[in-house]
C-alpha cells in the first residue's frame, strides 16, 4: 500500500508523544515528582528516558559529571585570598596551547630572588580553549577547571588574580573525588616527609 511507510513513521512519532504521558502517569502513581527535581533530570538523562527529553534550564540543570570543565580558576587555602597554592612555576603558561595565561613572578624586594607566589596572574577567557592542560599538568594542584558556565558578560573577559581565586572548599564541593584523592596524596607525602625529618633528627645526635 502506498503511504504505508509514512504511516509507520507517524506511528513512531505518536508513540514518542504518548510515552511522555505514560511516564508522567507512572511517576505520579509512584508519588514522585518528575519535573524540577534532580531525580527527574537524572531519569531524563538515563537509558530509560522516553518521551519528553527537555531539561528546563535555568529552572532545572543537567547533572554535571565531576570531570566537567569550563574555565580555569586558581585555588587558595583558607578564607582570605592570601594563601595561594600557585608557586608561579609557569608550567601552565608553558603548556597552554593558545598561550592565554600570563604570569608575573614575585621577586623578593630585598634580595631580588624569585618568591614562589604569583604577583599577577591573568587568563584571557576569550582566548582560552577549555582544554584543561593547565589543570592536568599543574604539579601543585593550584589551578583547576571550573564547573560554572553562566559567565556571559557585556564586555570581553580578562580574569586577573582577584577574579581567578576561589577557595579550596569550593573545589572540594565541585570535584569531591579528585579533591579527596589529592588531599590523601598530599597527607601521605607530608607524613613521609615528617618521618624522614624525624629519622634525620634521631640520626643526627647519634652522629
Amino acid at each position, binding site marked *: 500500500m502506498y503511504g504505508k511507510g509514512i504511516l*509507520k513513521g507517524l506511528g513512531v512519532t505518536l508513540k514518542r508523544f504518548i510515552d511522555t504521558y505514560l511516564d508522567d502517569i507512572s511517576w505520579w502513581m509512584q508519588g514522585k515528582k518528575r519535573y524540577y527535581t534532580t531525580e527527574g533530570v537524572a531519569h531524563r538523562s538515563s537509558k530509560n528516558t522516553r518521551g519528553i527529553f527537555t531539561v528546563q534550564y535555568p529552572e532545572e540543570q543537567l547533572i554535571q559529571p565531576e570531570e566537567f570543565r569550563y574555565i580555569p580558576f586558581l585555588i587558595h587555602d583558607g578564607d582570605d585570598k592570601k594563601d595561594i597554592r600557585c608557586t608561579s612555576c609557569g608550567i601552565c603558561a*608553558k603548556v597552554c596551547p593558545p598561550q592565554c595565561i600570563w604570569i608575573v613572578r614575585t621577586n623578593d624586594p630585598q634580595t631580588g630572588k624569585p618568591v614562589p607566589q604569583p604577583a599577577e596572574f591573568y587568563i584571557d577567557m576569550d582566548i582560552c580553549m577549555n582544554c584543561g592542560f593547565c589543570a592536568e599538568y599543574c604539579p601543585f594542584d593550584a589551578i583547576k*577547571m571550573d564547573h560554572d558556565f553562566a559567565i556571559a558578560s557585556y564586555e570581553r573577559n580578562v580574569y586577573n588574580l582577584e577574579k581567578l581565586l576561589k577557595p579550596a572548599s569550593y573545589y572540594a564541593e565541585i570535584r569531591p573525588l579528585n579533591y579527596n584523592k589529592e588531599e590523601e596524596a598530599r597527607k601521605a607525602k607530608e607524613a613521609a616527609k615528617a618521618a624522614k625529618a624525624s629519622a634525620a633528627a634521631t640520626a643526627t645526635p647519634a652522629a
Partner: protein
Amino acid sequence: MTAPDSTTTIDLVARFPDFVTADARPGFSGFIVKKENLVEVATTLRDEFGFDLLSNVTGVDYLADNKMEVVYHLHRTTGGPGLVIKVQVERVDPVEVPSLIDVWAGADFQEREAWDLMGIKFIGHPDLRRILMWEGFEGHPLRKDYKEAFFEEEVKPFKSRWPDGKHTYAEFKNPFRDNLKFPEGFDPDKYAPQSEDDLYFSLERSSMKKEEGDLNTDHIVVNMGPHHPSTHGVLRVAVELDGETITSLKPVMGYLHRNHDKIGERNTYLQIIPYTDRLDYFNSMANNFGYVTTVEKLMNIPVAERAEYIRVIMAELSRVQNHLIFIGMLINDLGSMYTPSLYAFEERELILDIFEAVSGARMMCNYFRFGGVVRDIPEDAMQKIKDLVFDRLQAKTDEMERFLNENEVLVARLQGVHVLNAEEAIHHSVTGPVLRAAGVPYDLRRADPYSVYDRFDFDVAVRYNGDMYDNYLIRFDEIRQSLRILEQALKQIPEGPINSQKPQYQVRVPAGEAYGRIESPKGELGFYVVSNGKPNPYRYHVRAPSFVNLTAVETMCKGVKIADFVALLAMLDIVMGEVDR
C-alpha cells in the same frame, strides 16, 4: 605497527634506476623521483603496481636546504601498506612541479591547496587558483619565511607569558592595532579588489545548441552560500544552471580556514591535541585518535592495552553519533525540518554525556595522550556506556529505521539518484561510507588495521548501487557494525594502566616523518608529521577526508537537478572545520 609503513615490498629504484632514488635521510622513507619523470612513475605505480588511491598530497618547505618537497602518499584500495614518493625542487620562484591530476583526479584540490599555502605551481593543472585564501592575498602562508601579523615567536611557549607576563592584547603589538599587514607602499585608495572572473570562467560553459525557432535561453550562474542553510556550514558553491539542471559547479571554500597547519607547526606536539578536536567537530575523539597514532608511530612507543580499548570505544561511540546526525541532517536537507534530526540529537546528547563524564567536555574532548588516554573511564560512565550499547542504541537505531526507511517520499527522493560509481570514487580519492556504498569494501579498520581493530569480529559495510538510498542505508549498517565492535570491546576490555608513558608536557620526538591514518566516520583521516627532533613539529599536515571527498562533488552533481544537489552534498557528510581547517 610502528615500523615505517612504506617501501615494504616494492623496489622502485630497480624499476627506474635513472630517476628514482630511495629517501636515505634517517627516519624518512619512500622514494625521491625526478620531477621530469613524475607523471611516468605515477602512471606506472597506478597501472602496474595497483596504487589506485592517492591519499595525500602536500608540500614541505625545507628553507635551510633551499628546497621544496612535494610528498605523495599512495595506497591500494585492496588494502595493505602504502607507498611514499617525493619530488624535490629548488626553492626559487616559481617552484614548479608537474601536476598529477590526469593520473589521479583526487590530486585536484590538494594541489590547489599546496599552491595556495606553499606556493608550489603544478604545471598542467587546469584550474590552479587559490583555494583556501582569496585571490589577491599576499604571500603563501605555510612557507617557513612567512610571518603573520600577530607573529610573536617561532615556537611556543612564548617568552612573554612567564615569568614577567603582563597581559597585553596581541593587537597592541601590531602597528595597525589589528591582525593585519600590508605590502610596502600599499595604497588602499587605489586598490581595486580582484574580481572573481576566474572562478566563473572555470565553470565549464557548455555551448548551447540553438536551432531555428528555439527560445532564446541562457545558462545562469547561481552562488549558493557561504550563508546558506543547507551547505553544512560556510561552504559556497558556484553553480551553473540550465533551467533546473546543473551543467557545471565549483565549490569555493576557505571561509573557515583557521590556519590549523600553521598554528600546529608552532605548537608543541602535546598542544596540537586540543586543536585537532576542532577539525571535525562532530568527532573530536576520532581526530585525537588519528593524531596520537601518528605521533606514536614517530616516537615508536607502545600504547597501554586498556587505553587501546578505551580509544576504540570512544571512536566507535563517536561514529555512532556522527552517523545518526548525518541521517537527521540529511532528512533536514531534504526538506523535512526537524523531527528526525531531533530524534538523532537525543541519542547524540546521551553519547555526549558519556564524553563529558570521561573527558570533561561534550564536543572538544581532548582525551587522548601519547601512549594512552588522560584518565580511566569513571565507574558510573562505564555503566552508562554499557547501558547505552547493550540496551538502548540498538533499539533506537531500529526505531530510526522504522521511522524513515520505508517513507515513500524519502525513497522517491533517494532511490536511483546516482552518487558515484567505484571507478569515479577511487579516481577522485573518495574514502569512507561514500566509497563503500559504491561497492568498494575499503575500510582502514580492515585494510590497514591500527590500534586493536584486528581483534574484533565485524563486517565492512558495503552496498553496491552507489545511489543516494544506498549511501543513506550504509550509515545504518555502519552503526550496527560499530555497536558490534563496542559490545566486544566492552566485554574484552582488560584492567590495567591507561598510559604507557609518564604524564609529561614536553615529549621527545625523534627526527623523521610519519603518515598515520585512521578510518574516521567521514573517511580516511590522515596526519603527516615531519619532526626535526625539536619540541615542535617541522611540518604538520592534515589529510582531511571531507576536503578530499569534495573533489568529487563536481562529477557527482553534473546533470542532476538543483534540488538534488543539496542532498548529494549531504551524502558526502562534510564538516567545514575539516574542509577548511
